[in-house]
């Protein structure tokens, strides 16, 4: 059979932490932390990606769901390679692959690495 995914892409536990945070423990020992807002604003679905490419319209009328602080209502598994996030604003088309979730990590170590990479 094909070699399995490396431990860095194998989550061992995923849980909510407080009202605003989400944590993933990975097989290589890494401890990822995210804010719900960060995950919501980085939704990978086609419509969110397209919206991000548009210039910001300061006169845009906000939708009612955007007034809520984002948080996940549920996070069902998608096969063995991703999770879908169902948001409290009703949005549910984003499929977050394990690689993508790992890349969005906001832990101090990852933020420092990303900061160094952009210098």
């Amino acid at each position, binding site marked *: *059979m*094909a*070699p399995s995914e490396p431990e860095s892409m194998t989550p061992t536990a995923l*849980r909510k932490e407080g009202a605003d945070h989400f944590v993933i423990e990975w097989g290589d020992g890494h401890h990822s932390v995210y804010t719900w807002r960060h995950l919501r604003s980085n939704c990978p679905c086609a419509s969110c990606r397209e919206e991000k490419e548009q210039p910001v319209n300061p006169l845009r009328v906000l939708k009612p769901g955007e007034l809520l602080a984002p948080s996940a*209502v*549920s996070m069902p*598994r998608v*096969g*063995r390679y991703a999770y879908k996030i169902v948001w409290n604003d009703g949005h549910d088309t984003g499929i977050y692959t394990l690689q993508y979730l790992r890349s969005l990590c906001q832990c101090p170590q990852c933020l420092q690495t990303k900061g160094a990479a952009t210098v």
Partner: protein
Amino acid sequence: MQPPGPASQKFELPNIQYLVAVASGKGGVGKSTVATNLALALLKKGKRVGLMDADIYGPSIPTMLGIGDVNPQTTSFPIERHGLKAMSMGFLLGPDKAAVMRGPMVQKYLLGFLTQVDWGQLDYLLVDMPPGTGDAQLALAQTAPVAGVIVVTTPQDVSLNVARRGVQMFRQVQVPVLGVVENMSFFIGDDGKRYEIFRHGGGRKLAEESDVPFLGEIPIDPRVAECGDQGEPVVHRYPDSPVGKAYLALADMVDQQLRSGSQPKELPEVQL
């Protein structure tokens, strides 16, 4: 049969021991022929086998099993033929109708075939995949408990270059690749000589570079096409032919791969 409601999340199929996809990425390499004959070979090995046609746009299984016009309003599915249980869009549409639909409807029909058809207890459910790496493949990978995928290729580079993408696709979605089968591998002439009509060795090369087992070579035999068109697959009609024996050997390899390998690990559930 009606298409089911909204596409469901991951589901279990406790009545099916191994759900195995037969795929390629490439069209025309013989996926349906391999799926059908492998299913019959597994049957000959004493397994309880189902065959699901996931090619919604171009269903081949009804022809390959010799199942003619079916009245979907009065027929119970799956249909049994040659000891196999089978399901196909071809049973719902008839031979002169096209399935004109986009991806979400394709997904709904595939999930319906898996969850609404009474397959009973099966050792194997083989799923004959359409070409490509899109809707049907994703629908299966996202929701069904796929034990593994067999990738079919023909020997030449033009096939390998696409089959390679098929392997990568299943890797990306964490579906175990059981191995590569090289179809139309060679032809033995009346003179006893071996002719490599579509070149040779590509399947083994793909398996090696992908670090997956090479499951075997299936020779070219005109009886394969003849039997497929007549609805009596070659393994059923000519089990002792070289091509029949090749499929029986493939069945042994696939069974051994699944029994000796570990079950793929499911992702942990999220605690919210």
